[in-house]
Structure formats: C-alpha cells, structure tokens
C-alpha cells in the first residue's frame, strides 16, 4: 500500500497538449475514481501512472518514490485493462501466476499464492481453463486475480466494466468494492460512468478536456459542485439548468420571467447572467411554481416528469404519482436550500 501524488502533470502528443497540468493526491488505501467524458484524458493519466505513457512534464510519486522514469515493472503496480488483456495461450492459473513466474518464484509458491486469490474471486474451479472458455465476468475476475496475486502498492483499473452487460456490471461493481474493503490496497479506477464513480469511490476526480474540474467525495460533488460541468456530469437524471438573472428582491428570474426561489445567493449580483441549477429530486409537488408537463415517465417508485420551466426543458423526479396529460400544468415547489447558482460565462459556482 502506498499513497500516490500527481503534481503538475502534463502530457503532449507532438504539439497537441491533452493534459494541462493535473494535481491529484491519493492517500494510502484510498479508492479514487477518475471520471469524465471520453477524451478528457483520464485514461492517459492512468497510463502515465502505470508507466505505459511518457510523462511530458510534472511529477508522479508512488509512496516516496518519484516514478517518472521508472519502467512499469519497477513501479510495483497492477493494472486491469478494459479488454482484460488475458494471455490467451495460458490457463487461468498461469495467467494469474505469470508475474510471479517472471520474478523467478518457485512453482509450489506460485500455486500457494494463486489458489487463495482464486478462491476470493470464485475462480478455484476454473484454474485449468483457457481464457477463451470463460464468460466476460469470469475473464474480468481473472484479470483482477492477476492483479491481486502480486500484492502491488497500487491497483489501476482502466474502465474494467465497460465490456460487461448492465446486470453483470452492477454485480462486479460491488465485488470490486468488496475486494477493496478486504485488501485495502490503494486503487485508482477510471470510468466514464458517473454512477460507477458515485457508488465505488472514496474520492472522485472529475476530469474534462485535460483538466481536473473538481475533486471530492461523491456526496461533496453531488451537494456542492464547483462548476456547471460537474453539476451536469454528476447525478442522474442530470441537474436542471435554467438561465436567467437575480432580481433585486433576491429571487431568481428565468428568461421568461418565472420566479424561482434562492436561499443562498452568495456572491451573485442582480443583473449578472446566471444559471439556476436544481436537481430533479429536489422538486416536490404542491408549490406555487407552474410546470408545463410534456412527458410523464412513471417508474413505479417515483415519477419522472419532463416539462418546461423558465423557458427551458427540465426533468423533475417526484415521489407522488402524477397523472397529467401532456400540455397540462402542475404546481411544484423547489427546496431553495438545494439550489445552486453558476455564473453563465465562467460556469463557476457563485452561490454560497
């Protein structure tokens, strides 16, 4: 186990810079998720941490060692790839013991280490199979087994669940989380799926276009997003964004004049172009704000309503069952404590 420090890391391919100075510090035993849309540089950052990509500038430390110029094998890390990268010509047991075999460990000892790892992952009965004979979930487990057999300082996961179907993804999500709680190894996990990030992470690093947008625990990001990007990326359905300005009485006016409540305007000034952010689940039925219904989507436990508010299409999630025909209006309330205000130009959060 070791901490990881990423300080001022940049990456360029030729004249194109894809990472513009990234700082992340990861504590010992922490489960950190790098999340962002594709092309944001999260995988590149992970591969730089693994030693598969050269670091253009900046510094990466694992424990107390600067690893910038160390080969992957000297960094004491293990990586799980999106396509699993199992050696097709080796059995499950040989795949898991490959690194030990390369290190010159005797066969009996390899066996001793592979078996318990296989048992943790429920692979004990598959040890003699070849990867080709395994299902996607089993292959994924073998890839994880190959990583844990080595007892590395840091686990790296590169979108490990992307190739699995939705149901298996949920199962493997909790399996990986369990494994981490059991082994307590520092883990860096890359995904584009914010639900994976929210459910698994101790700490989430939201990345976008080669920079870090915000770092925090899942609930910090959910409750206090620093900017419009994080606000829109974290949470499902996404946060509603209604453009408008602050009125002199401290309430918010949408472009069409709709009045929306604000509790903590923070540094927002009247007249400044703002974006009013409110999560769908912070809306309730029975208020004074008229919502013009376009579509209702009953899911049983709750009802999703797509409608127009303040001149913008928004989504509301209501615990109550709503039976309104499209075009009808329902009165809704918004909890002003959960409202965020963002500067429209810079995208930065201005509310307190």
């Amino acid at each position, binding site marked *: 186990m070791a901490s990881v420090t990423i300080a001022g890391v940049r990456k360029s391919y030729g004249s194109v810079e894809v990472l513009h100075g990234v700082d992340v510090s990861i504590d010992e035993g922490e489960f950190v998720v790098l999340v962002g849309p594709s092309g944001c540089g999260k995988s590149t950052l992970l591969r730089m941490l*693994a*030693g*598969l990509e050269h670091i253009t500038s900046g510094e990466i430390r694992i424990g107390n060692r600067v690893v910038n110029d160390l*080969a*992957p*094998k000297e960094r004491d*890390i*293990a*990586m799980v*790839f*999106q*396509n699993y*990268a199992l*050696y*097709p*010509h*080796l059995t499950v047991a040989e795949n898991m013991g*490959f*690194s030990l075999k*390369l*290190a010159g460990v005797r066969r009996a000892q390899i066996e001793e280490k592979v078996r318990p790892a296989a048992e943790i992952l429920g692979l004990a009965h598959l040890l003699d199979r*070849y*990867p*080709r*004979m395994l299902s996607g979930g089993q292959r994924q487990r073998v890839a994880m087994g*190959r990583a844990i057999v*080595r007892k590395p300082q840091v686990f790296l996961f590169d979108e490990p669940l992307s190739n699995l179907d939705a149901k298996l993804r949920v199962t493997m999500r909790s399996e990986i989380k369990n494994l981490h709680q059991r082994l307590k190894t520092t883990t860096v996990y890359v995904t584009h799926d914010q639900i994976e990030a929210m459910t698994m992470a101790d700490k989430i690093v939201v990345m976008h276009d080669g920079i870090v947008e915000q770092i925090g625990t899942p609930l910090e990001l959910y409750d206090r997003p620093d900017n419009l990007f994080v606000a829109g990326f974290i949470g499902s359905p996404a946060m509603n964004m209604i453009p408008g300005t602050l009125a002199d009485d401290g309430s918010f006016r949408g472009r069409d004049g709709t009045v929306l409540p604000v509790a903590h305007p923070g540094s927002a000034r009247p007249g400044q172009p703002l974006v009013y952010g409110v999560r769908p689940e912070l809306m309730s039925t029975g208020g004074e704000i008229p919502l013009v219904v376009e579509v209702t989507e009953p899911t049983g436990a709750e009802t999703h309503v797509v409608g127009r508010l303040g001149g913008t299409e928004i989504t509301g999630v209501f615990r109550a069952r709503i039976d309104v025909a499209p075009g009808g209006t329902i009165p809704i309330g918004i909890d002003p404590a959960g409202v965020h205000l963002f500067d429209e130009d810079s995208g930065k959060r201005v509310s307190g």
Partner: protein
Amino acid sequence: MTGPDQASSAPAQDDPPRRRGWFSRLSESRNGLGFLFMLPAAAVLLFFLTYPLGLGVWLGFTDTRIGREGVFVGLENYAWLFDDPVFWLSVFNTMLYTVVASVAKFGLGLWLALILNRHLPFKNFFRAVILLPWVVPTVLSAMAFWWIFDSQFSIISWSLMQMGLIDQPINFLGDTWNARWSVIAANVWRGIPFVAISLLAGLQTIPQSLNEAAAIDGATPWQRFTKVTLPLLTPIIAVVMTFSVLFTFTDFQLIYVLTRGGPVNATHLMATLSFQRAIPGGQLGEGAAIAVAMIPFLLAAILFSFFGLQRRRWQQGQD
C-alpha cells in the same frame, strides 16, 4: 417444365414425381442441385490437377520416352534412382536449399515484421517496398541475380575488390559450394516478403494491451517477445512456414535461370533434375519418378505443421 415459383409452391400430388424428368427432379433436390453446381469446378480440378498428377505417377512406373509409348516396368525407375548418385545429390541439395533458405527467410522475415509493426515514419512506404521482391517475376529477379553473381562483372566482387578485401572476382556460380550459397541467397531474397508481410499481419492481430500487461507484470522486452508474442504467433508461423517450405522445396525457376543445376549438379534440386531428365533428356518415366519421389517429403512437411504447430488447445473455444 414448371417454373421455379410454381414448383416450390405447388403440392407434390399435382405433379407426381415419376412423371417428371430426371433433370427437373435433380434440380429441385438440395443435394442434387449442390452436385450440379459443383460439377464445373470438379471437372476443372479433375482435368487439370488430378489427371496430370495421376499421369505423372503412372509415367513413373513406365519406361516412356519422348516420342515412344512406354510399358509398365514396376519399380524399375525407382530402383535405378536408388543407385543413382546424382539423384541422391539432388535430394541433398534440395534438403540443404529448403532448410537453410527457410530458416533464413523465417528469421529475417520475422525480424522485418517486428520492425514494421512498430510506429515508424513512412511505415506504409516501407511496407510497400518490402513487397517488391515478391511482385517482380522470378525470372526477372533471377536474371538480376545472374548479373550480380557474374564471374567477372559481379558488383559484389567489384565492391569487395574496391575495398581491398579480395584480389580477384569471386566465382559465385562456378564453384560448387559458392553456387549453392548463391542460389540460396537469391531464394531468401525472393521469399522474405511473403514471410514478413504474413507475419506482420499476424502481429497486428495481437492486442497491444497484452504487451502492456506483460510489461506491468514485469516482463523484459525479450520475455515479452518469447512468452507473449511468439506463442500467440505460432498458428500464423505454422501456416506461413508450411507454404514457404513447400514453395522452396519445389523451386524451379530460380535455379533454372541461374545455374541450370550446375556446376557438376551441385545446385540440382529434385524439381530441376526431374525436368532435366524428362524433357531435355527425353526420359519421361525417370523424370516422373523423381517428381513423384518429392511427394513423401512434401506430405511430411504438411503433416508436421498440421499436427505439430497449427491447432493449439488454447485456440479451441468452447462457446
């Protein structure tokens, strides 16, 4: 005759089978139709492959000469060859030629493939250039080599003399061992592109992440090559090298243009000797027997690659 639409939709009792002609019945049965469609191909194969092969084998058992029908002589041709030192020399030459050239083609071809598989500037240009020796007609390249190996005007001799390494031109094709190595070199030059491009195609099917995983697992570049790349390449290597060995073993054009089997039969391969005896020598029976004698060697090469290299347990999927 009923049209196809009607035939497929109309019930059988409207048109009892015995009333229809054999051809319409044949054309409506799945197997029959398959047989019909295969006939042209089968005819071509029988006429142009099976018949000549059978004729060749038959000729080997006769004393046919050009211009004279032969009679069946049993194994006499083979008994004669068994005591013929020139025949055994050609067997030796063929083995030497095949083994040395194939090993060299494999080694150099794999090396080239590995280089071309990396990210090089002008990669596609180099890949195209590599194919040139394969594209040029053999006779043309053999003539170029004939000039390169010329006893007086060889550019190799000239260069070495200019560098002061030798005093007089090397007699490339006039000395027995020089001639053997020279034809092998020409064959290697010509055969490398096939091996290199085929292995390159094989290398490109190996995911980059496997190499990365191995690097993280602690493999040195050499270990990555021997423990990951090479095992994953074996199925392709088996196919490519089987073909390469077959091409080399049956080579004719290169030898015939460069040396015609000389000097003193030192470069006669079984194929060239067979032609030499059968056509210029007129002994069709004996030539055919030499050609037939190549078959066991070729079969052995195919069986070796088929059972020894081609299918691995890890390749056989279950799903």
